[in-house]
């Protein structure tokens, strides 16, 4: 709440470091563990962090400006390129926001397919997170196990929509691709094979004393701070706030499924790790239910070929793997959106970095960046 006055003073020149007690360390944009092109300027006393400042924008592509020059359907593939490890979720959020503007609802079958793919995507995103997070903390092997299992998800994506990463899986009004033959079996097979693998990750990490020591009590965020900083997603839930848009304001067919929202107790890095691991389990549970209950019927609602939503504005958000992903769309009844604002979870979550790492060591900065699960494509857009 209080006005902060302790922003980094980086303008005054650093004395030669033999005389100075403080050290300004420039971490990134080319650094092995800043997950892309994040630049963090650290003010250090020895190895203790006195303050940070994030410099972002190295990956800025002006997505919001591009949107103003594309039709609604044309902009759809661009959203995949924001959070590129969870492209399906991005597409879902965008399609739903435009559908809302058009007052259209996707048919039930499309909704189920969307849920299945989004949850698969959540698993894939969390696997990338787990692999890189473990790599940041020094365990190199989980990365490969995670990517091996993520490969199965990507195969399902490729079979379903023809692309592995930037999927462009959904269209405004539903899905364009019918589930391929063997889709249900593939999904189930994945769930069956994946859960034992998840136990294996846990064997490598959950009880490992080094992992526990490195993550417990590191980067603590209490619920009040989380809410004040607008932090959402697993980071918020690990702080003990049981809030998930899939339950709070169910979109798609999430109300049909029985799943739990894991929450943490302490809001530290270890809790965030546990929450995300459990989220993967719950996602597998949702996928199983959705595959079992996959209804028949059309997969595309009736939307006009040229999408011209009426004048108005709408904000719609979904629970992306990283937090609340919102789209604020202003329509002026032309074929192109007047303005699209993306509320990226990574961007807002990254703001908490400073609060989390003050007083910790340099090694913890790396762990905290990893635990925030940011994707720079989404931070910078």
């Amino acid at each position, binding site marked *: 709440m209080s006005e902060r006055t302790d922003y980094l003073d980086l303008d005054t020149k650093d004395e030669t470091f033999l005389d100075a007690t403080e050290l300004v360390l420039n971490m990134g944009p080319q650094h092995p563990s800043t997950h892309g092109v994040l630049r963090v300027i650290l003010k250090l006393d020895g190895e203790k962090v006195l303050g940070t400042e994030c410099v972002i924008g190295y990956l800025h592509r002006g997505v919001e400006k591009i949107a103003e020059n594309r039709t609604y359907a044309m902009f759809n593939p661009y959203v995949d390129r924001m959070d590129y490890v969870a492209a399906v979720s991005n597409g879902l959020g965008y399609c739903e926001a435009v559908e809302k503007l058009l007052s259209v609802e996707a048919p039930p079958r499309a909704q189920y397919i969307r849920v299945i793919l989004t949850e698969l995507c959540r698993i894939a995103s969390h696997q990338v997170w787990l692999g890189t997070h473990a790599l940041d903390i020094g365990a190199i092997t989980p990365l490969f196990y995670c990517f091996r299992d993520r490969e199965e998800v990507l195969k399902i994506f490729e079979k379903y929509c023809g692309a592995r990463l930037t999927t462009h899986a959904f*269209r405004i009004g539903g899905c364009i691709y019918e589930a391929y033959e063997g889709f249900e079996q593939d999904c189930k097979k994945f769930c069956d094979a994946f859960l034992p693998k998840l136990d294996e990750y846990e064997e490598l990490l959950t009880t490992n004393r080094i992992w526990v020591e490195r993550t417990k009590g590191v980067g603590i965020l209490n619920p009040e701070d989380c809410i004040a900083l607008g932090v959402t997603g697993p980071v918020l839930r690990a702080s003990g706030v049981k809030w998930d848009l899939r339950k709070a304001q169910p979109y798609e067919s999430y109300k049909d499924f029985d799943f739990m929202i894991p929450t943490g107790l302490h809001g530290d890095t270890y809790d965030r790790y546990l929450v995300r691991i459990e989220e993967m389990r719950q996602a597998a549970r949702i996928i199983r239910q959705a595959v079992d209950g996959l209804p028949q019927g059309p997969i595309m609602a009736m939307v006009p070929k040229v999408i011209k939503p009426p004048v108005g504005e709408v904000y719609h958000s979904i629970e992306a793997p990283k937090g609340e992903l919102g789209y*604020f769309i202003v329509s002026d009844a032309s074929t192109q959106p007047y303005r699209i604002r993306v509320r990226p979870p990574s961007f807002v979550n990254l703001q908490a970095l400073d609060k989390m790492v003050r007083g910790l060591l340099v090694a913890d900065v790396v762990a905290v960046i990893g635990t925030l699960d940011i994707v720079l494509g989404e931070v910078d857009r």
Partner: protein
Amino acid sequence: MPEETKGTDPVSPEPSSPAGAPVASGEGAGSGAKASAETSPSSAAPTVPPTSVPAAKAEVPSAAKTAEPAAAAPAADKPATPAKPAVPATGEKPTAPAAAKPAAAKPVPKPEGPKPEPWEAELVTRLRSQYGSGVKEASTYLGQKYLVVDSSIVYEILLRMRQDEMFDYCVDITAVHYPKREAQFDIVYILYSFHHNQRVRVKTQIKDGERLRTVVGIWETANWLEREVFDMFGIEFDGHPDLKRILLPDGWKGYPLRKDYPILQQDQEWVHINLGIESGQ
């Protein structure tokens, strides 16, 4: 476009308001979704032979452009959520295929777009009673609530929303540029209350160069969000602790998300200065 939509006959000549009155999704999201499922006829619509695609193209824009305020439907006083489209869409009912041909010519019959409806809730009443005409508008659109307030009192309103009305989570702050208006910018604060499970947008309009008071003191998250608004629109916030560009480099000229910002010129200039050649764009 997929086969399913090719057959869509979006020309609905019915002049009356859509069959299902806008159902504001009340009592939480679950029921809202349910209600919409009942009223939306689109889900199971059969495929119609693709006959009237051109008509559709011609019709929909006219419908949208001439949309006028419709009769107000009772607005929900319960927390509404942006869960599901609650209103049947314009031109979605393939009622009379025969009417497709002349419909395009007739100016009068148009499917009504969803309209903003007044939002009546205790919160609005309280705010109105205190700030009077400062609260210019309180409406719901597609079940989403928003307030339009005067730029002079927006800080007080937001402070009140945070402290008294328990809107403890500032989802997003953004702006929209309307170069033709006198007050060129819409500043949009999207707020959420964990307590009410309710989302409200607070909008205000300001002129170019007009400054707003920062809300960093109310929600810490506003720090970067306001910086981004400054970066993209050039709107300055008084009292912001660190107002500087965030996504663009410090030496950037202009504010890219303004409607009058020329991308090509910037590109050409940059290429010319940095590479010494003419841009290929």
